[in-house]
């Protein structure tokens, strides 16, 4: 399903009924909570799957982000789109959880000298679809770059919206996007399947 980028815009105000659902959800109304989860679960899980490196991490992250969304439902005022609001919460949750895991992994890597690049190659060998190969490359980028590329490419947010969501300056967001793009491009060119595919565009 192609994302309707217009819906993602932070400038779009949500209809009153969604605001009401959120307000009801925060008071403990079972139906409202379920409706909210039905509305946002897929989105949250999708974002989590891009940000996390393994399926387990993605599930953890998605669960935690959903809890945060339910807990903060009362704070949604309808000034931006519900999806923008949910993405923001997911990103903040991701930065809390995944950075810790990345630090542990780096320590692990330091002591056990695991080579992420070799894992990437193995994974790539298993994937045939372009998308899947791209997912692998994205997963192996740094979290900072991953966040921005996911928001930019998957959800179509502008650089200023990304900067606002991540609470970083505009220039920082642009710089990270540039670096992330360069690294992804490098990975794309290094992969023969993706290289062939990208030639059609560039």
């Amino acid at each position, binding site marked *: 399903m192609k994302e309707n980028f217009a819906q993602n815009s932070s400038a779009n105000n949500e209809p009153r009924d969604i605001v009401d659902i959120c307000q009801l959800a*925060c008071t403990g109304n079972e139906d409202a909570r379920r409706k909210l989860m039905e509305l946002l679960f897929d989105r949250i899980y999708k974002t989590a799957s891009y940000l996390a490196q393994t399926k387990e991490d993605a599930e953890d992250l998605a669960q935690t982000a959903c809890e945060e969304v*339910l807990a903060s439902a009362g704070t949604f005022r309808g000034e931006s789109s519900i999806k923008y609001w949910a993405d923001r919460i997911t990103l903040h949750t991701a930065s809390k959880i995944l950075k810790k895991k990345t630090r542990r992994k780096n320590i692990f890597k330091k002591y056990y000298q695991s080579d992420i690049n070799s894992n990437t190659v193995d994974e790539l060998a298993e994937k045939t679809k372009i998308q899947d190969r791209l997912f692998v490359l994205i997963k192996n980028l740094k979290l900072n770059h991953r966040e921005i590329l996911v928001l*930019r490419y998957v959800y179509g947010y502008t650089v200023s919206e990304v900067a606002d969501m991540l609470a970083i300056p505009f220039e920082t967001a642009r710089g990270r996007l540039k670096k992330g793009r360069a690294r992804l491009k490098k990975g794309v060119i290094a992969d023969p399947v993706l290289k062939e595919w990208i030639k059609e565009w*560039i």
Partner: protein
Amino acid sequence: MDIDMKKKAEIEDFKFDDAMTHILSDTPEGGAFGEFDDLSRRRKINEILLQYPLLNRQQDVYNLKFSDVFKKYKFAVMATIVAVFVFGFYFFKLAQPEKQDQTHNKQQLSIKEEERHEENSFIALKSSLSNGYILPGKPIATQKETALIQVTTGIDWWMGKKSHGKIQTLTPEKLIISLESGESWFRVDPRQKGPALEVHTSRGKIEVTGTIFMIQATASDTTVTLFEGKVLVTSKSGVQTQMLAGHSLQLSDKKQIRLAEFELQQMKQQISELKWTDDAPGQSAAVSYDGEKETEKKLSPSSSAKASVDNKISTHALHTQIQNSRKQGDWPLVVALYNQLIQSDPNSEATLISRVSLGEIYSTKLFKYKEALRQYNIYINTGHTTLLPEAMLGKCRTLKLLHKYNEEKQCLQKFVHNFSEAIQIKDAKKRLEILEQASQKNKNI
């Protein structure tokens, strides 16, 4: 060319972004890990919703009202209120010394009021004099003067400024002096077979056998300082203390404190300044005389006799005081004492030398450079040679601090010419070099 390369790179980036957006925006609901089946999705949502009891508590935190907060944290709130009261009371008590200061100010005010009465009581001193003795029972008071009273043979009573007292009883066996306020020194000669001296204050009594001691009495307390000999002090509550020489006792405190070395020196100096009756005959107020005029004359000692006695005592005493003040770092007092020394004997060698010290203190401690320069110049102009190198160097340093570089240069040139073997010659030459180089640069400019 560079611009073209940049543009080309930008266009490539745009195209790359387009490609990525095209391929990644069209992703399954499961995201990077494939599609979610409906059952797994529902299971996940139910799991999250079942944890709501935990979330509900968190939500309560966001929606709490003040009354809820109070109910929840009532013990903490009450403990905080109690702590505020306790600390407030504690700090309030600490602030009370201000009140004591106020009462002290009141005491000072009352003393000022009493000064008016002092005039009358001083007249009483004059009029009560007869046959060379002060009548018992009549109040004795001093204002700006001090008074030395030979109460009887072997007992001298020196009254300090602004002191009140009277002789209560005078018999061949006993002499009781009542001291109300101020400072009094008593000297009792044990060789003389006079009456036993007792001094009464508001706080107690001091019995004396043969000694020199000082009593400082105020409306609220009495301090007895014993220079030599022994005294027995009895407080109003009946507690007796045998005082030792070189100790001080505050009757409210009931503990003797040993005086420090400099305090003993000060006391010694103070005692040496007092004109006891046998030291300066004809100077006391209680020697026999005929009329009021003579009384006044006697009360203010003759200037010439005083001068010679004072000079001998005060130079030595001044030097001691100067040393003590230097140790304490009380530089304004040191300067005042030096000036007093200079005034007392302007031409003596010690006085001349002290000008160099004075110059040094003005320059290095008080930063009064002009005054320092004046002192150095006075010394140099006298032609005295003992400290001439030091005086000249001091002058050079002071001129430097006053930014009078030309004069400093001239002074240094004289120094280098006259004292080529002085210890400070190297530093002087260095400084002279710098000044000469600077003056050459200025000329070139």
